[in-house]
């Protein structure tokens, strides 16, 4: 097999396991394969996908970002506090997004200028961001944010509602939820960035051989910084979307989400040693995790067993990936 075929095989393997899971769960539970549940899964997957897209870019450079779970909590509470303080909703959310990007920038600077290992730099940020989120909220959830705050997380496009003969509204098409729409737009945009632009090529080059990239004139520090800023900004966005969906910002939101994000990327074939990874793979990985959770839930499997299953799935897919690269 040449690398192209291998790549297809890997993608196909992930996709096949995704379809396999869907089939199994459809068989076990009648409610699984309904439009409503499909939307639920898609909604649940969005946050893993946003974070996974950022994680993919970071991991392609050979780095890792452990801070996204904490950053999304901080961004969520910042936007909520801003809105509570009287800012218009879009501005409040922009503030949340910028806080995320700022945290990412600090990560990136610590890695490129202070030359800290990415694991350590983002571990530090994970603790700091979580601490700040708890501090500024006094560890309390912020609720009562109003309908316009809820729009991003709960609204949808092309929702068709007819008023029935009995006078009650009848939802004939639930529409495409904004978070799902956002996921598609982001995935396409970042995939184009990675595959079709010089910036994307430089990300791969750094992960493949950063010294060769530097000696070829690639702006290694700048490009690396970009990957962490993107990851931070996407975490900020995730924080806003999650807070909007619950119409509540919780400083304890997003615990361990960074691990879901990394898992999604890895299941999708991104190599932790850098230089390899695709957005399509990561999105498939996010759906594998999402469908596993949802299906196991509907099948009445306990949360503890779910963890065991997901853990085993990660081990299995990474093992397959390793086998693929062994010669």
């Amino acid at each position, binding site marked *: 097999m040449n690398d192209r075929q291998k790549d297809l095989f890997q993608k196909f393997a992930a996709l096949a396991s995704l379809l396999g899971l869907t089939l199994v769960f459809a068989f076990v539970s009648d409610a699984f394969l309904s439009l409503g549940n499909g939307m639920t899964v898609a909604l649940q997957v969005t946050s893993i996908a946003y974070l996974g897209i950022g994680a993919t870019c970071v991991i392609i450079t050979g780095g890792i970002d452990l801070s996204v779970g904490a950053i999304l909590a901080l961004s969520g509470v910042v936007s909520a506090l801003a809105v509570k303080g009287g800012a218009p909703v879009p501005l409040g959310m922009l503030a949340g997004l910028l806080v995320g990007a700022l945290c990412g920038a600090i990560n990136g600077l610590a890695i490129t200028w202070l030359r800290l290992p990415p694991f350590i730099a983002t571990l530090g940020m994970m603790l700091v961001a979580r601490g700040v989120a708890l501090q500024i909220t006094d560890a309390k959830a912020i609720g009562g944010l109003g309908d316009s705050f809820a729009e991003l997380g709960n609204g949808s496009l092309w929702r068709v509602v007819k008023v029935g003969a009995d006078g009650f509204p009848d939802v004939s098409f639930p529409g495409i939820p904004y978070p799902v729409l956002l996921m598609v737009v982001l995935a396409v945009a970042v995939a184009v960035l990675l595959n079709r632009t010089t910036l994307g090529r430089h990300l791969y080059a750094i992960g493949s051989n950063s*010294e060769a990239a530097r000696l070829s004139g690639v702006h290694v520090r700048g490009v690396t910084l970009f990957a962490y800023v993107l990851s931070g900004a996407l975490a900020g966005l995730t924080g806003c979307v999650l807070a909007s969906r619950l119409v509540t910002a919780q400083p304890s939101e997003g615990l361990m989400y960074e691990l879901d994000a990394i898992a999604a990327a890895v299941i999708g074939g991104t190599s932790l040693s850098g230089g390899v990874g695709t957005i399509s793979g990561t999105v498939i990985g996010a759906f594998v995790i999402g469908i596993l959770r949802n299906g196991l839930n509907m099948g009445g499997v306990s949360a503890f067993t779910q963890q065991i299953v997901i853990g085993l799935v990660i081990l299995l897919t990474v093992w397959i990936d390793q086998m693929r690269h062994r010669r």
Partner: protein
Amino acid sequence: MLVKWLDHQTVDEAGADASPLLRLSGITKRFLTVTALQDVSFDLRRGEVHALCGENGAGKSTLMKILSGQLLPDAGEIVFKGRPVRFASTPQAQTAGIAMIHQELNLVPHLSVAENIFLAREPKRGPFIDRQRLHADTQRCLARLGVDIEPGAIVRTLSVAQRQMVEIAKALSVRAEVLIMDEPTSSLTEAETERLFEVIGELKRAGVALVYISHRLDEMARIVDRVTVLRDGRHVSTDDFAATTVDEVVVRMVGRALDDKFPPATRVPSRDVLLSVQNLARRGVFEDVSFELRRGEILGFSGLMGAGRTEVARAVFGADLPDAGTVRLGERELQIRSPRDAIAHGIAYLSEDRKGHGLALNMTVAQNVSLANMAGVANGLGFIRFAQEASVAQRYVDSLAIRTPSTRQVVRLLSGGNQQKVVVAKWLFRDSHVLFFDEPTRGIDVGAKYAIYKLLDELAAQGIGVVLISSELPEILGMTDRVAVFHAGRVRAVLDTRHTNSEEIMQHASGRLAASAT
């Protein structure tokens, strides 16, 4: 106890024991559809150095991997000390007495010499490592080789030559009777090579059988007893080295006669100075380095390992920043703070460490070619034009005769010579007019070397200034127009290649002649 064997296995100096210690016969190995070895036979006597020659891909490494237990043959037999054997793993082969020293040395850099030599075989007292015995045993191993290395020294701090000695000591500490050396001199200085040959001589006298793989055929004459040539996975010949010549060996390796080692010069060096470096210094590394590079010439950088040649090139290129000195391109003084600056001015540096510093090995030929000049294959918004990128790569694949199935081939899968050409293509596409080549032919086949030499000449003929950093004097004498000789971080002399010889260069390189310049 670990080194006692050296005493009772000594054979007489007159010659090697005639009955083979080891015999491989009818070895065949296939990888999927590729036949790497076809019915190859090879034997080894006690106390001999048996050279194994062949171009890259001839099957040398596959054969040695089979011998050292890294691969199992599909067919054929290995008879060691009169008994058929089958090694399923490296430890098995080692226990039997067959050890291999790889080109990329396999030591743990953060552990000490002693800890490396006895890794996974540490002498113990109860559950704890017996440090005293560990050091004493190590001391004895090293003393037997006549090398002066501290058992407690951390491997990371040792030179490549010292690390190699540690590898040899390690192999001997497992009582190896067969020692396979893959390109042992490729990164050694002349003096270190000399020392290695002495050690090899001692090992021979102690009855150790050595398989010696090297591209440097000239130096083999000093130590090799017999030579076996492989070509395209088949056995071509086995001769006493005394009964053949290096030229004959080369002809058998490439399957055709090589008329000349160096191509005739087509370049005409001009008088105008392209690059002028003055009083360049980097504290503790080199000082007061000045030289001029003229349009269309090949300037050699000669000198011993560690004399500062690579370091000066890297400083001009901005990979490491100098503390003092000026770099002028034509009339203009350059401020180079990073490789990006140097590249923007058309200066390129091709590292001696192709895989570590030159190529993104997991990326394709096309992606590597465009890496230094993405703007050349992208539109204003930074979107890559793939068709253009592919055609650019194809152009260089054709003009440099890069042997690759397609421009989408991953660079890792190309041979050393072709990888080198991909690096050259990268810099040509960037429109570089000053090229520093650092040991461009290291680890490259004889046939491919000629192609690289021809390329250097053609580049210079186009008006490019070429700096050739090389540790091989014949290469310097055969390929350059002028040569700057480095010693201890200084340029000792700039000589006209036509009017000098290897003795004069060595005199300057070893610091025995006073500085002079032409």
